[in-house]
């Protein structure tokens, strides 16, 4: 009994020390120094990217690992950063673009179970990094309101050297995915942008999307563009100004007859640039 409690407290500490995957978590992003580069193909271009989480777009606050960032090349191969650094407030990685085309930089955060329950005398739920079944076996007697969720997220961006292509868009068919309809290199201020959401490879409606222009620290209103995907999985919006944007998409799905979790939560963070007209 006592060990159970200690374990629960310990695991709740572990959870809070990590960047929470809960709905109220920080935004996360990969922010490259440029999204559209030009260069002689023989020379290539170095791209350096910040990998951080924060509550203001794009003020870095907390680092998260950039060693395992995946780079999908214009030919569809998977590569990794040539170097990376983890600092106190952000991580950084470098990668050299050597072939013309569009690259996807991505961090797939593997699906993980999280659970929470309440104990008498405290309104604050106790959180665990285990599924519902495991949590139930270790939570103290009299604990109540046990809920479990399976979280999956992607953090991604697209960088183009010279002529854009679409090979790196290729969906995997797993969980929630964002498929650019408007090519990220063609997102322009005051012009309509279109993206498509897939769940397990199929168009999915009711994905909740928020698109926020950088610089929220320096304005009084967030000015988020709030959207929901339609039956074809499509969202359309018009970036009002040139600049860098963070898109945050979430999709929740109830899990029926599942002992491990009550729902599945998918999140995507996409960083992109809207160019000048």
């Amino acid at each position, binding site marked *: 009994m006592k060990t159970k409690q200690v374990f629960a407290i310990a695991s709740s500490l572990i959870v809070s020390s990590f960047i929470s995957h809960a709905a109220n978590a920080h935004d996360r992003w990969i922010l490259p120094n440029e999204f559209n580069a*030009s260069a002689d193909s023989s020379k290539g271009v170095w791209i350096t990217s910040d990998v951080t989480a924060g509550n203001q777009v794009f003020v870095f606050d907390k680092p998260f690992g950039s060693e395992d960032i995946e780079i999908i090349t214009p030919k569809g191969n998977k590569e990794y950063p040539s170097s990376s650094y983890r600092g106190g407030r952000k991580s950084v990685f470098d990668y050299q673009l050597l072939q013309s085309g569009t690259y996807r930089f991505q961090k797939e955060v593997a699906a993980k179970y999280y659970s929470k329950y309440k104990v008498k005398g405290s309104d604050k739920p106790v959180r665990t990094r285990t599924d519902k079944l495991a949590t139930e076996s270790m939570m103290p007697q009299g604990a109540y309101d046990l809920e479990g969720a399976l979280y999956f997220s992607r953090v991604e961006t697209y960088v183009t050297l010279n002529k854009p292509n679409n090979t790196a868009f290729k969906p995997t068919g797993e969980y929630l995915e964002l498929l650019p309809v408007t090519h990220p*290199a*063609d997102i322009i201020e005051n012009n309509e942008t279109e993206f498509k959401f897939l769940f397990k490879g199929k168009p999915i409606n009711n994905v909740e999307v928020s698109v926020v222009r950088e610089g929220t620290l320096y304005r009084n209103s967030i000015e988020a563009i709030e959207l929901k995907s339609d039956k074809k999985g499509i969202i359309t919006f018009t970036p009002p100004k040139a600049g860098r944007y963070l898109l945050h998409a979430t999709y929740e799905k109830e899990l029926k007859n599942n002992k491990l979790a009550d729902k599945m939560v998918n999140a995507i963070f996409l960083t992109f640039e809207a160019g000048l007209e």
Partner: protein
Amino acid sequence: MNIKTPLVSAIFLCSTLPIYAQSNLSVSLTLPEITSGQYHRPYTAVWIEDNKGKHVKTLALWSEPKGQKWLKDIRRWWRKIGRTDANWVDGISSATRPAGTYDLKWDLTTEDKQKVKQSDYKVFIEVVREHGGRNLLKHSFSLKKDFKTTLNPTAETGPINIQFNK
């Protein structure tokens, strides 16, 4: 014979020139003297798009000869056509120009040297200066009638005279 050849070629030139010059859009672009701050000659592109925003023909591309690193800063021109073919860009680019007035002509052909159809087009002038500003100017016109217009000066451009003769 020695005297005849230049004469013949002169006649040949005279007789062919009017044919090439028969229909023309002319753009007279002035790059202003800028004396404040650090001055670098601007990156400049002048080109034609059709009324759906599709590239038709680049009339001028003035950029640094060494490498393509800064070509993306001619934002619209780069997005519309520059990024598509590095070799072609190498072939058409020439050095940046000092302040002055430059006459550019469009002979109503595409990049593939095909005559364009009678329709509406837009001429774009994009001027970008390192440590300076960027100005993008455009003017819509129809090939159905002659016109003459002047675009007002901006920070990076002097007056631009555009004229079309059927």
